[in-house]
């Protein structure tokens, strides 16, 4: 919504500068998003009249004059010779900033003495005003120029003004008109709101003799007012009208349409003018029918767009055809044209939801639909119609038929709201004098119906669709009083409680552990493409109307996002990438789960001048996972190798806790890696974080440090490739060798002295008792038992050491 400084000033007196006004209305809740200064050429220059002209006492070529500037006589010293008493001249008063060419120094008119005589301004030549090259004499204006008028106005330039671009919140449709804003300012400073005149001279016969209005759907149109003006002259609007519309962003069309647009900008109420003679006539009457369109009904709007309507669209029609898409746009068939003689003026109220649906459905958004869908003022319809008729008569001439046809079958309920002063104080946290609160609300044109010690009751004007209950009045008091007048009090209150609070810290702990292990945190898009999602799962939660095909499903995993981030890095030559994400993933249902995912590729450590370039491998990934699990206190996770190559992994394992699969890890298929620009092995893992956090144990208890020495026994054995570390641990778990406290795998070897299809595993077993120093004999007996079990059950061949 655009409005100008001068326009506002027509309805309310204030002496704020442009900047102050912007600040004030912003603080009232209408944010000024931009200010553009406009017009104002020749500011300070006025039409003057030469009263006397005498010889300057001290200079032959100068004259000493008295010049009337419209309010007083000024003494001016002038060097020109081409003028005489009674001439109208362009007088630059003290303080005028004379126009200068680019690069010239600013030239400000000052009061000064010229050869001993005071000069209070300057009579200007055409060149001094940059109007022409004439600098031989001053500019002599026509005899009928008005003394005191600003020279800019005399020349037909618009006066200085400022156009404000305002953000009007959707709850305040009344602020989509200049008067609405002026009312706010009036309330703020306590000045009167000066409503424009809407008095009419109705000279024609009664409208009702030639026009009828028939509302067939009262829900969608509770009020419709028609007036008729005959014998108008359609033509261009006067300059003041067209230039003002242009300032607020509306293209001037012709005087009739411009007048309706002007009144819309002034009042916030849209209007429409039809060519009266293009409405069908039945028995000497033109009937305006407000009805729903029939399904499939064709209609062409003013912008020459053809629409196929449905039963949900409200149409203004005559007895034969549609003539306007109600509240949105007029029809091409009854548009005001250059030869239009008679005008039917529509002022109506339409159901906001319906206008909104039509406007959205047809993709037709207009200044009118914008206002109707937010809620116009049903109470002001007649007044606005009169105001517009007056303006049309003023700019296009013609004769107004007497009266109007005002169909108003559904009177709106009048709302009354009681404000308790104690509630105001309780909610705002300050004490506001009851009299002050009442003043504020009356200033906004709320009529007080009654009051007692503790409260006051108001009737809500029809334009304030936002005021529905007491708290809304409290907000009005707060706005006019000024929220900056409410002191900030120190935070007070209770200790909050919520079950999630501890979980928030657990999520933080996961992030801290992983960053501590040298992995960077990523944040991926929640919305991803079908194709990326299909890498992980077919069980997808989909968007109903996606914005784009590459953002049409909710991520079923964090891995596609990490892979996208991998590509972003690799294409920018960041070759060593370690990322994790903690976030939510989704599946059909829809259901959501928290997840943590990891991606590692490239060098294990940052580049170093000694040139170590160990690459990450699957054990690095496993190590990170083990460290994370241990720090969270999650035990008993098994890593179960998948024998088949999957759609995502070249080699992978499932993470299981008992029968539950809680995650997976592995190496990305190289062919997929290439799709993400990866030339080196990429390792991925993802774990269900909800499960991890459920299964964590945070209890910690102290165990005494060992007091007796340990004995170590190293064993190297040859086993089949298929034998795993977990098989070894399984056997140990089964036979439970006495005093065995630690089993450590310290070497896996293939090659020399180990046949194809086999490998050598080297373990270090630590034996220790908590009660005594073990004797060799005791250790050996347990160890021999272990060795023979490994030999038989794996089976294994023990290597000589």
């Amino acid at each position, binding site marked *: 919504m655009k409005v100008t400084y001068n326009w506002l000033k027509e309805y309310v007196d204030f002496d704020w500068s442009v900047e102050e006004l912007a600040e004030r209305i912003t603080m009232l*809740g209408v*944010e000024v998003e931009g200010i553009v200064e406009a017009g104002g050429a020749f500011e300070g220059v006025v039409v003057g009249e030469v009263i006397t002209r005498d010889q300057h006492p001290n200079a032959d070529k100068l004259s000493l004059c008295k010049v009337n500037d419209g309010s007083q006589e000024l003494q001016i010293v002038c060097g020109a010779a081409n003028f005489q008493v009674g001439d109208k001249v362009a007088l630059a008063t003290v303080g005028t900033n004379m126009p200068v060419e680019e690069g010239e120094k600013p030239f400000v008119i000052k009061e000064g003495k010229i050869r001993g005589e005071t000069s209070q301004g300057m009579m200007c030549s055409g060149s001094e005003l940059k109007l022409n090259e004439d600098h031989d004499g001053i500019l002599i204006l026509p005899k009928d120029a008005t003394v005191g008028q600003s020279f800019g106005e005399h020349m037909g330039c618009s006066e200085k003004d400022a156009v404000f671009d305002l953000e009007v919140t959707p709850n305040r449709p009344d602020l989509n008109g200049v008067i609405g804003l002026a009312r706010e300012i009036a309330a703020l400073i306590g000045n009167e709101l000066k409503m424009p005149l809407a008095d009419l001279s109705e000279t024609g016969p009664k409208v009702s003799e030639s026009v009828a209005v028939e509302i067939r759907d009262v829900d969608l149109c509770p009020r419709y007012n028609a007036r008729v003006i005959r014998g108008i002259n359609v033509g261009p609007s006067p300059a003041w009208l067209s230039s003002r519309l242009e300032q607020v962003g509306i293209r001037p069309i012709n005087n009739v349409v411009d007048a309706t647009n002007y009144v819309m900008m002034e009042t916030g109420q849209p209007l429409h003018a039809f060519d009266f003679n293009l409405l069908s006539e039945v028995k000497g009457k033109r009937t305006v029918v407000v009805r729903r369109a029939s399904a499939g009904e064709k209609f062409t709007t003013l912008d020459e767009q053809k629409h196929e309507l449905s039963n949900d669209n409200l149409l203004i029609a005559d007895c034969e055809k549609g003539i306007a898409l109600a509240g949105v746009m007029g029809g091409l068939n009854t548009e005001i044209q250059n030869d239009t003689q008679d005008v039917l003026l529509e002022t109506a109220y339409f159901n906001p*939801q319906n206008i*909104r649906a039509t406007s*959205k459905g047809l993709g037709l958004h207009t200044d009118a639909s914008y206002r109707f869908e937010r809620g116009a003022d049903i109470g002001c319809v007649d007044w606005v119609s009169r105001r517009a008729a007056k303006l049309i008569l003023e700019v296009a001439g013609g004769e107004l038929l007497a009266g109007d046809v005002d169909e108003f079958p559904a009177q709106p309920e009048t709302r009354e709201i009681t404000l308790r002063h104690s509630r105001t104080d*309780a*909610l*705002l946290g*300050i004490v506001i004098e009851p009299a002050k609160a009442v003043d504020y609300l009356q200033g906004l044109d709320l009529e007080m119906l009654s009051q007692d010690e503790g409260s006051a009751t108001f009737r809500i004007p029809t334009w304030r669709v936002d005021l529905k209950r007491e*708290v*809304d009045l409290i*907000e009005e008091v*707060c706005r006019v009083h000024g*929220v900056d007048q*409410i002191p*900030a*009090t*120190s*935070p*007070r*209150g*209770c200790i*909050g*409680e*919520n079950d*999630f*609070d501890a*979980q*928030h810290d657990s999520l*933080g702990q996961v*992030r801290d552990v*992983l*960053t*501590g*292990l*040298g992995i*960077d*945190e990523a*944040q*991926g*898009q*929640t*919305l991803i493409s079908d194709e990326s999602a299909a890498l992980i799962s077919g069980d997808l*939660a989909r*968007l*109903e109307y*996606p*914005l784009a095909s590459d953002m049409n499903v*909710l991520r079923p995993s964090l891995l596609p996002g990490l892979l996208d*981030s991998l590509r972003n*890095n690799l294409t*920018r030559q*960041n070759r060593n*990438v*370690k*990322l994790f994400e903690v976030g939510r993933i989704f599946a059909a*249902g*829809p259901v*959501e789960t928290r997840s943590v995912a990891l991606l590692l590729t490239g060098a294990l450590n940052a580049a*170093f001048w000694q040139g170590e370039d160990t690459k990450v491998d699957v054990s690095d990934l496993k190590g990170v996972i083990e460290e994370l699990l241990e720090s969270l206190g999650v035990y008993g996770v098994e890593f179960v190798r998948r024998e088949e190559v999957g759609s995502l992994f070249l080699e992978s394992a499932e993470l299981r806790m008992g029968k539950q699969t809680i995650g997976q890890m592995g190496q990305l298929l190289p062919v997929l890696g290439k799709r993400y620009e990866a030339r080196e092995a990429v390792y991925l893992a993802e774990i269900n974080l909800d499960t991890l956090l459920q299964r964590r144990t945070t209890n910690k208890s102290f165990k005494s440090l060992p007091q007796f020495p340990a004995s170590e026994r190293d064993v190297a054995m040859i086993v089949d490739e298929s034998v795993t570390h977990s098989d070894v641990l399984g056997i140990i778990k089964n036979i439970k060798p006495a005093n065995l406290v630690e089993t450590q795998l310290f070497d896996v070897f293939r090659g020399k002295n180990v046949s194809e299809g086999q490998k050598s595993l080297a373990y270090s077993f630590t034996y220790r008792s908590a009660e005594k120093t073990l004797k060799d004999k005791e250790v050996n007996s347990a160890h021999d038992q272990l060795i023979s079990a490994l030999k038989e059950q794996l089976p294994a061949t023990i290597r000589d050491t």
Partner: protein
Amino acid sequence: MSLLDEIDPLKAEALVEFNAATNQSSLDRAKGAWLGPQGRFTGLMKQMGALSKEDRPLAGQAINAAKTEIEKALQEARERIELATAAPREPSDFTAPGRRPSLGRLHPLTQVTEDIVKSFRKLGFVVADGPEIEDEYHCFDALNTPADHPARDAQDTFYVASDGRPLLRTHTSSVQIRVMKEQKPPVRIIVPGRVYRRDTADATHNPTFHQVEGLYVDRDVTVADLKGTVEFVFRELMGSKTKIRFRPHYFSYTEPSFEIDFANSLTRKMGKDWLEIAGCGMVHPAVLEEVGLDPEEWSGWAFGFGIERIAMLRYGINDIRLFYENDTRFLHQF
């Protein structure tokens, strides 16, 4: 030549040899040559038996003194050689960069979120959370946002294709409803989380972004309280010299509603007097009634803001998409 006369020259010769040893093996050889079973000094000691009873004590004394001296020289040579062996072959350049185990970085959005959470926790707030896939009731209806409200346009909201038209929450305010329905007041929560709007990605928009919402419901909660808390949190976040301004505004679930502007050296640098940063207001009585609270007894305030916006302002980031690209050079700046 008597035995006694042989001691000193022999000792001198041994000392020279030990002192000359430059490594462990030459030292070992010298040790063998002098002190080993066949060593020359050991030989000298063996000759002691041949001496007369009278001469023996004197010679014994002299030999022992010499032996101590030789062993001391041996020990010194050993230490000298050990030190020389332990020392790096080349001197270290202490100015060269170290071998750094690099620490991973928290995402800047996480860092900002945690800072916000920390300031709120100082005031007794706790973190709460709710689902990202919401329903119309929690996201709109219960928040006094009627069906024909612009915010409910399909243009702004992502709907999930499923029964009951679930949607991706457009704000964290949906959690207000869930918490107030479950918990009797007083309620004092902060809700950081992901939210979604149908915006095409550009420098200032991403369909996914993050918000933080604060909610306090209690007896006698006022606008003055709201101002006090907001000022505290934003001064913590944006610096103690930050100025805060409240400007009346409209949100359907608060009344009165305000937008919050701030001003500090950052806004001055950007050539602006004020910069909008958050929205807030007193919880609308219709919302309290919806969750079964009597607005005559309870009042509250809520405020919310975008985490990306704060992070962009704080770090001078000019494109929101950078947050979601996860370029490690970007991540390592924070």
